[in-house]
């Protein structure tokens, strides 16, 4: 037990004795895990947006200009006969307009928009929302609907989802490459930091060996040093991201109010409940491997 506290005490001493390299190591891990954190937040939000898109939008059908409501209702019944269709909801032009106003100005009536009520800008925006009971049949359903007369366009979440996914994938690859490179740099820096500590304390290590110290006892302080650097380097970016996250969400929500129905952000607590332990494990892992390999190679009883 006393050797456990000894390791921690000596490990902290090492970090301060070796300030410059320790800071460089912490900085690199911080950069690495900051990037990872940003990437992580994006992925988590993409996922929640995908889910939102899939469950709310299904397939939306718009009609040629001047298509009568009766005709639309007929098409609605037609679509409803399909096996894979769960439900079809009709949105009238008036409803579409009200919805738009609601989204754009959630706090109340806007005079300019209200003045337009009698000359509905969305007069041809009547639509049918088609909900499917099986997402896999979407393609067939879409091509069936597209062939119906008077149907102007069919929007399906698939295309939105696809392009989002490919953007997401690109971001992931680039971030992952940078993260891996930074991880390598971080491991290299930590092993150098530890190596300097080992060199400075060569005399002491030699004496310890003669006195019958175990490998564990001699390596302990250096391992603690690596782990502490890893822990600090992972906590800094998580804290910074935690404060940034709500600010960014707030900013996006205000700026792009129209998109509020699609952009559903994952609550920060949910993101960081996962990001904190994951970052900590990566940081500790970098610290552990950075110091351990150096120690195996250079510090043996």
């Amino acid at each position, binding site marked *: 037990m*006393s050797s456990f506290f000894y390791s921690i005490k000596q490990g902290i001493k090492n970090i301060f004795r070796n300030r410059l390299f320790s800071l460089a190591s912490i900085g690199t891990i911080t950069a690495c895990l900051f990037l990872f954190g940003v990437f992580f937040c994006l992925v988590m939000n993409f996922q929640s947006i995908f889910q939102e898109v899939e469950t709310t939008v299904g397939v939306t059908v718009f009609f040629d200009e001047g298509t009568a409501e009766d005709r639309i209702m007929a098409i609605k019944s037609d679509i409803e006969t399909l096996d894979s269709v769960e439900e079809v909801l009709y949105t009238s032009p008036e409803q579409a307009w009200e919805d738009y106003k609601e989204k754009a100005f959630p706090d109340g009536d806007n005079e300019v928009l209200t003045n337009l009520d009698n000359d509905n800008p969305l007069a041809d925006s009547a639509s049918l929302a088609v909900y499917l009971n099986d997402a896999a049949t979407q393609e067939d359903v879409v091509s069936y609907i597209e062939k119906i007369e008077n149907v102007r366009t069919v929007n399906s979440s698939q295309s939105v989802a696809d392009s989002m996914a490919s953007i997401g994938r690109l971001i992931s690859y680039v971030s992952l490459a940078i993260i891996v490179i930074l991880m390598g740099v971080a491991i290299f820096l930590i092993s150098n930091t530890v190596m300097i500590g080992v060199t400075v304390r060569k*005399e002491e290590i030699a004496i*310890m*060996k003669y*006195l*019958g*110290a*175990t490998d564990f*006892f001699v390596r302990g302080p250096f391992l603690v040093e690596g782990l502490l650097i890893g822990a600090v380097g992972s906590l800094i970016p998580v804290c910074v991201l935690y404060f940034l996250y709500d600010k960014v969400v707030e900013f996006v929500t205000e700026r792009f109010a129209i998109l509020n129905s699609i952009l559903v952000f994952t609550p920060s607590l949910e993101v960081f409940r996962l990001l904190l332990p994951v970052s900590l494990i990566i940081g500790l892992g970098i610290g552990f491997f950075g110091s351990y390999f150096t120690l195996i190679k250079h510090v043996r*009883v």
Partner: protein
Amino acid sequence: MIALDNVTKTYPGNVQALRGISLRVEKGEFVFVVGESGSGKTTLFKLLLKELEPTSGAIYINNKNLGKLRRKRVPILRRGIGVVFQDFRLLKDRTVYENIAFAQRVVGVPARNIRKNVMAVLALVGLTDKAKSRPDELSGGEQQRVALARALVNNPPLLLADEPTGNLDPKNSWEIMKLLEAINMRGTTVLVVTHNKEIVERMKKRVISMDKGLIVNDEKKGGYYYE
């Protein structure tokens, strides 16, 4: 206590430091090891500490074959052997007390026992009043006594001293030797490498003489062989 069977040690570059040594040291003995520079005395000590492996032959300490000792058990072996060097090897950034307590911490002695043990061994080497001094505030003789205290604080049954008086004047050398003799009389087996002919002849102990990696003489009651 110690047994060597035809031990050889060849360093990389074909340097033959030991060329076939057989030796027995019984528990409680006091033995001088003498021989000119490069005859293999330090190499012999390093083999006993399993810091080096012999090229051939077998070494036994307390009937345990060091060649069969697993790496994990090496610290246990070393805890049973105190070592002292010519250059003291004290940690300069720590006090006398801390240097000795360090030895206890390394082997995991509970904190509450450390103080008592350190003060007892400091009394043994006569440095109770220097506990708070740093090594560079002490004379060479005092520093070597601190090193000796550190080697002894864990009560090893065997003490190896490699030229412990090499850096000391005759008076201090004699005091260290007397201290080693006192430690031996308490039951510790002691091996001392020295070049000090005068002391060896006055002490009347067993003397092993080495030359070019071989034992050339083993005198039971004193006498410095090598000229």
